[in-house]
């Protein structure tokens, strides 16, 4: 009888979708793919009245979730508003996982001790500080996940990141998108990152 394959693991990425975050967004996709995990994001969900239900389903489908609160700040566009999407989705995840009695969510931040001020309800939870750097994201992902056998190094993650960045223009051109924060561009970037992870991580 053929050995049954273990299911793949999906990771929910709760990240800001803005131009300044683009490098870190690719870094997250590259880093998560390097661990043989499948990145998922709300980018895949089309805008509709049932969006919240779909977000809840997506969070429920993912084994792990990564929440980046580094850009919870006032928007430049008027009226100036803080960005609530990331903390809101973090709240949804925490509530869902408490219900299922498991805790596999991780908070990433760029500044130490800022989360204690901005989200004091999570005191006692250690945020992973990446300092707004690509290498910082890789280092923190290495601290978060461990894999027996194919354990990626930071250099391998950086290799995947470089290849994705190299192909980014082609992917965006072919998908007709101006930024990677579009459903099709996101899917394509994830597949390319996964292909390189399969090739580079031994």
């Amino acid at each position, binding site marked *: 009888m053929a050995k049954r394959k273990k299911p*793949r693991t999906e990771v929910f990425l709760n990240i800001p979708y803005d131009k300044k975050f683009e490098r870190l967004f690719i870094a997250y996709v590259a880093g998560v793919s390097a661990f043989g995990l499948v990145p998922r994001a709300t980018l895949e969900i089309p805008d509709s009245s049932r969006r919240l239900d779909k977000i809840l389903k997506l969070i429920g489908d993912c084994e792990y979730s990564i929440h980046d609160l580094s850009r919870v700040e006032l928007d430049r566009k008027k009226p100036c508003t803080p960005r609530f999407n990331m903390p809101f989705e973090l709240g949804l995840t925490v509530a869902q996982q408490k219900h299922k009695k498991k805790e596999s969510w991780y908070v990433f931040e760029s500044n130490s001790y800022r989360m204690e001020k901005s989200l004091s309800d999570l005191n006692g939870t250690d945020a992973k500080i990446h300092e707004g750097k690509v290498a910082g994201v890789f280092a923190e992902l290495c601290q978060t996940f461990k894999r027996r056998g194919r354990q990626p190094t930071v250099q391998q993650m950086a290799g995947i990141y470089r290849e994705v960045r190299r192909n980014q223009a082609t992917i965006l051109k*072919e998908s007709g998108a101006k930024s990677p924060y579009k459903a099709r561009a996101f899917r394509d970037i994830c*597949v390319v990152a996964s292909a390189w992870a399969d090739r580079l991580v031994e």
Partner: protein
Amino acid sequence: MSVILDSRFATAEDTAAALGVSDSRFKRLMRVAGPKTIARRVAGPKTITVDFCARAGHKAGTNGKFKLKSASRKKQTRGKTKKAAH
């Protein structure tokens, strides 16, 4: 605290299946993600183009292009050929 992953390492096929990427698009992405292809460059002598042909001392029929002296190669002759040449 680290999480030890015991799930199967997701390949590009797994990721494409999870994200709902079509087969034809997947094949195209595999080509995009292929190893670097460096275009073969045909080496030739460096040439510079001047604005007009009426430059003093230029050869007729060069169409405004001059081969740089540094790029011109000296014909190498060796051995018997060299002796014969002399």
